């Protein structure tokens, strides 16, 4: 009887279109935020923060970007890693060439740079669809991989091609401990996830979904396909770009182009499929899942006293991801998010199932 909407009447359309129309969900969200902002930094070890929470949040952010494009607008992209790289290298170049820029401004501009590149590579989406487009986005991935490896200006002519983020601060406040990095990322992810949610429940989101579900009908009710698709590419790449900048500056610290190669793109696609196409919540669930598999493969056999070799872990990881993708596409194309929604549905009816 805990999870009920009975007695909660919506008196305005605004209430009805709220992100969490049901009170229990609002409480749930408040608790999660309290844990994320208060309990975790207070209780968790540095290892947990740096190796689990930080990559989790950044992955989730990049996955949101991809999901806006693929899950909402229906344009499959295999180039997310490339767009993350644009964000990372844009941030790097801004930081070293214009040192007086505020870090937040750098992240925003990095996202903007990625958005512009995303739009350029989104142009073919006007003429080509489905897996043709997916292949076209691979072009973006390979081109960007190459550009950051071979065009030395991007890496400021460092001989090894590997670059490092300068010391970071915001308004004179140094971002130099795991907790501080974590707070910064958490704040950015919170704001951007909310923005994504707002976009998908409004005009732009509907035009994306219309294009996804039936582009011909969308055009006939007055949606301009090019505009809708390019805006999806732009917003999606903006998210990926910011995620890339965060990944480089706050997670890796120093990196080379390989950090954003095609495997990153695939991993993000897997998060979106497993978490749920067309769900913001799903991005978080998917990111958590993809991060947990290698951890589990590492920890569980070790705990059982028969540790696996690194190569073995990586092969098993491939097999598990592959199998999960097929499984979810067959059993639940809307992923973990949908399973969660179904569970809530059950709970709402419990203990009277009819």
């Amino acid at each position, binding site marked *: 009887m805990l999870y009920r909407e009975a007695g909660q009447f919506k008196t305005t359309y605004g209430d009805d279109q709220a992100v969490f129309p049901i009170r229990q969900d609002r409480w749930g969200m408040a608790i999660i935020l309290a844990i994320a902002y208060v309990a975790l930094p207070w209780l968790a070890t540095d290892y947990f923060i740096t190796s689990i929470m930080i990559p989790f949040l950044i992955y989730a952010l990049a996955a949101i970007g991809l999901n806006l494009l693929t899950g909402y607008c229906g344009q499959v992209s295999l180039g997310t890693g490339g767009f993350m790289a644009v964000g990372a290298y844009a941030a790097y170049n801004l930081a070293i060439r214009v040192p007086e820029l505020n870090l937040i401004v750098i992240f925003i501009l990095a996202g903007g740079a990625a958005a512009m590149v995303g739009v350029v590579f989104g142009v073919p989406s006007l003429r080509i669809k489905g897996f043709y487009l997916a292949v076209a986005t691979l*072009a973006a991935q390979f081109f960007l991989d190459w550009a950051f490896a071979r065009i030395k200006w991007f890496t400021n002519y460092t001989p090894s091609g590997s670059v490092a983020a300068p010391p970071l601060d915001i308004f004179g406040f140094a971002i130099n401990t795991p907790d501080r990095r974590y707070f910064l990322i958490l704040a950015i992810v919170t704001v951007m996830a909310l923005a994504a949610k707002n976009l998908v429940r409004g005009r732009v989101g509907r035009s994306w979904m219309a294009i996804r579900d039936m582009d011909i009908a969308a055009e006939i009710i007055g949606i301009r396909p090019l505009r809708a698709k390019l805006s999806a590419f732009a917003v999606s790449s903006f998210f990926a770009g910011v995620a890339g900048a965060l990944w480089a500056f706050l997670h890796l610290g120093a990196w080379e182009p390989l950090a954003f190669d095609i495997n990153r793109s695939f991993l993000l*696609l897997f998060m979106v499929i497993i978490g749920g196409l067309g769900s913001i919540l799903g991005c978080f669930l998917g990111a958590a899942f993809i991060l947990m598999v290698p951890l589990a493969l590492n920890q569980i056999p070790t705990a059982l006293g028969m540790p696996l070799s690194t190569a073995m872990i990586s092969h098993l990881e491939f097999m598990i991801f*592959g199998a999960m993708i*097929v499984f979810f596409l067959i059993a639940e194309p809307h992923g973990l998010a949908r399973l969660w929604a179904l569970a809530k549905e059950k709970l709402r009816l419990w203990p009277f199932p009819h």
Partner: protein
Amino acid sequence: MGFFFEVLFGGFLAGVLYALVALGFVLIFKASGVFNFAQGAMVLFAALSLVRLMEWMPIPIAMLASVAIMIVFALVVERLVLRPLVNQEGIILFMATIGVSYFIDGFGQTVWGSDVYKLDVGLPNEPVIILESLFEGGILVNQFDLVAAVIAGLLVTVLAIFFQKTRIGRALRAVADDHQAAQSVGIPLRDIWVIVWSTSGIVALVAGIVWGSALGVQFSISLVALKALPVLILGGFTSVPGAIVGGLIIGAGEKLAEVYIGPTFGGGIENWFAYMLALLFLLVRPQGLFGERIIERV
């Protein structure tokens, strides 16, 4: 001039290898509308199976066993992936094959190991000089490349005969045109799927032998498939001649670009040049070289 032709020729030969991989894609796409991203992983898997089996048995038997493995693989894919996803949108199936690709990459390396294995099935590998009568000094090529080209040619011929002359082949073509019509030919759709996946498994084995002999059997072979994708875009997903011509264009274009304009860009443009070429081409002719233009209906 001789140098230009040497590069061009080398490009064509590389193109033949791409075409070999692209052919596997086309077969499956034609018969089932599935864009099989796992084709590259299949090439690796087939090559790995062969090279490890060859440690235990004579080459011909190892080859037969590898063929059998690819057929079993086709059966499993049909049962566990295609059948449950029948009637789904193409893009869902595409993503499923990405999953399949990851799975067999992991599975193959778990079962067969993940080192670099040297594959020697007795293909010649000597540089020779050809066309001396046409150019001063002739053109330097590798015998191996010539053999690869011959193999690809043979494979295409065999497939063409298979499609044109046999009952199953005709049924396959019918499926490509119209799933309903295919039913009336009297071969169940499922069997057709198993047959095409097996066939493209065998094509993958051939590609694996050629690539594996050239590069050694190793994980990177799986990525060769990515090279075949621009070929498909260029040639159209449904056209066997398209795969060949597309392969030649991409192979030659890539090599010429690397040699003549690559240095100005800092080299390594091979990795994306083919894609850009294909993309530009798509903007002009979205259906590919040999594809048919469709006007959508409402």
